[in-house]
């Protein structure tokens, strides 16, 4: 069964979009994404003046990626020739564009539309660049840049926001006024790879954009926040690695989600697996359309003030004498968990019910229960 959906007015064959990046940097790689089943592919960012490639520019450790180069290595004219070679096969091409001023951005937008883009993604917040410092401080600057694009092209426009700005009403309203069709979040986080202690120097020479599964909680939060602030469609991006992740984003209100750096780590097959997994899950759960799941988990999300104030305490469901483990005892900041002669003990008078020991216990023998009224 195919689960189609309408995203920015484009009839997508599924909810899987490939993010802007080197995995979509020319006709050949974009074709791989399309052939692997992506409903839409976002090009590597197209700019007025391409930047030269240098190496090394990607830092990898612990399944974390940090990229220090600004995307955009292909001249506009070359993009025109590349795009001609793509067989879309029912998928859509979204051009990621960046510019330093409204008129420059609008020009690139027109060229992208002319070269065959079905939609645009504005990537104005790259974390390695200070070119657009002003729009980080002034929502009306973002409005000007965006309005210049929406006023000049007929194709739909999506704006990509960094995590901090995707929680700002002033910026969201600026994008709405400018007439965007969707908002994608988040931009990669500005990061530093680390410091080589012996040589007293940073591992990479400058800041980079930090991506990968570790940023997913941040992008999930951005999606949830956005979906409560705007009627624009939302596209989740940042740490999306599996179909389950895509479902998480959708249940928090996203219409679609983007696979990015995971393609760099696992290859193009991950797109196919995600597309299949997504349809499989929908089918096995008797879902007829994405409409049933988009935002489905939002009602369970409460503001801090409204969360249920249950008093709970931890307790052992069976005795534990494993002194070598001690994860629960060492991790208890309230001294509720201690080692006694008969093994681990939990003092309900001291336990505040934070739940950490329950989740860390490798044997799963700690449980939270409702505390008796004091």
């Amino acid at each position, binding site marked *: 069964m195919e689960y189609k959906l309408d995203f920015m007015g484009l009839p997508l064959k599924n909810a899987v979009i490939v993010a802007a990046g080197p995995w979509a940097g020319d006709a050949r790689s974009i074709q791989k994404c399309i052939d692997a089943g992506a409903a839409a592919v976002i090009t590597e960012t197209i700019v007025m*003046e391409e930047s030269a490639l240098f190496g090394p520019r990607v830092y990898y450790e612990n399944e974390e990626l940090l990229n220090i180069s600004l995307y955009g290595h292909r*001249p*506009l004219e070359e993009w025109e*020739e590349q795009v001609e070679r793509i067989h879309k096969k029912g998928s859509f091409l979204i051009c990621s564009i960046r510019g330093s001023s409204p*008129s420059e951005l609008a*020009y690139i937008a027109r060229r992208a539309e002319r070269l065959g883009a079905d939609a645009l993604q504005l990537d104005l917040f790259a974390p390695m660049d*200070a070119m657009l*410092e002003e729009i980080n401080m002034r929502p009306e600057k973002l409005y000007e840049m965006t309005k210049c694009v929406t006023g000049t092209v007929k194709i739909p426009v999506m704006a990509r926001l960094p995590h901090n700005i995707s929680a700002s009403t002033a910026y969201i309203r600026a994008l709405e006024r400018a007439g965007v069709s969707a908002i994608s979040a988040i931009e990669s986080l500005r990061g530093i790879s680390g410091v080589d202690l012996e040589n007293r120097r940073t591992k990479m020479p400058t800041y980079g954009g930090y991506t990968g599964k570790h940023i997913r909680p941040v992008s999930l939060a951005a999606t949830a926040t956005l979906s409560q602030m705007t009627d624009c469609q939302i596209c989740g991006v940042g740490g999306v690695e599996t179909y389950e992740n895509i479902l998480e984003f959708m249940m928090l209100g996203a219409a679609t989600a983007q696979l990015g750096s995971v393609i760099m780590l696992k290859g193009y097959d991950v797109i196919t697996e995600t597309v299949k997994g997504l349809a499989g899950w929908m089918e096995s759960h008797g879902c007829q359309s994405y409409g049933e799941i988009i935002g489905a988990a939002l009602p369970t999300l409460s503001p801090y003030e409204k969360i249920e104030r249950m008093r709970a305490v931890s307790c052992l469901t069976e005795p534990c004498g494993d002194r070598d483990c001690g994860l629960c005892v060492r991790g208890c900041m309230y001294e509720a968990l201690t080692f006694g002669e008969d093994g681990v003990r939990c003092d309900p008078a001291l336990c505040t019910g934070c739940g950490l020991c329950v989740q860390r216990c490798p044997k799963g023998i700690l449980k939270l229960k409702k505390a008796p009224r004091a």
Partner: protein
Amino acid sequence: MNVREIAKLANVSIATVSRVINRPEVVLPETREQVLAVMRKVGYSPAPHAGGGAQPKAVGLLVPDAEDYLAIRLMAGIESVAARREHAVYLCSTKGGPDRERQAIAGALEQRMRGLVIYTNTLSAEDAADLQRRRVPFVLVGRSEAAPRHNACYINYEEGGYRMVRHLLELGHQKFLLLCEAGSPNIEARMWEGLCRARRELMTGPGGDRVLHAEGGSIRAGYDAAREVLAGERPDAVFASSDELALGLMKALQENGVGVPGQIAVTGFTDSPVAGVVTPELTTVEQPTHRLGMVAARMLFDLIDDESLLDGTPQEIVLLPKLKVRNSCGNRKPINTLFE
């Protein structure tokens, strides 16, 4: 029927149609056939350019001064786009002044260039209107009298002035001197506007800032300006309208035992290649002139590809300059040399 309509009918870009006409070998066979089929159907054949015979694949670039670093960067930017279109770029120096400019334009047209990029602050509205009447594709670079009514691009100097002065104010400098080449009222006025905006925003009030005119824009002119900079009340910072002026001034100040930036901070407005190798390294405003050349060339080829645009609304593209913080301003933080 023009290329725009052909492109629409064939459902491809104008650039594709242009490639089918000029470089068919780079177009996918099925796309090429699709375009050719439309052309056959509507009986379209590419019009020979005015004047008959083969027109050279060349565009002209007119600049006030071919020795100027910015003119060379502009040329390089134009060439990078023109090369992809297999067009040559011919450089012609006008040495300033409307008469020389008019002569140079006439000369370029005799060479039957397909279009012109004119880097000028002095071109009159009549001269530009005359080119328009003759249906010559052209793009203006810079803010001349003619610029608002034609396809034009320029760098926002006011923003550059604003960013530099804001930075200098944040470093604690109070009294500024703008060192400008005499006879370049355009850049001087914009830098001054930027200075005033920065002062307004940071609410520092007027600081007794003044403008000093250098006799030309060379390193020597900057060097010679030192005498006047040191006479009278000394400024905290000198913001020069070009790197050359700043470098000459810096040299003279150092020879006179005046510490830069300790006693007087000095900043430029170009980001020339030597800015990063002198001591102290020169803080300056980077002018994205190479990118400006790419913009101008793209606007020009748009006009060459689609003549109907000659009658359309003129386009204006403005680029923003970027602050390049090094050390001559008094900055000591290493990371500022990378980021604003």
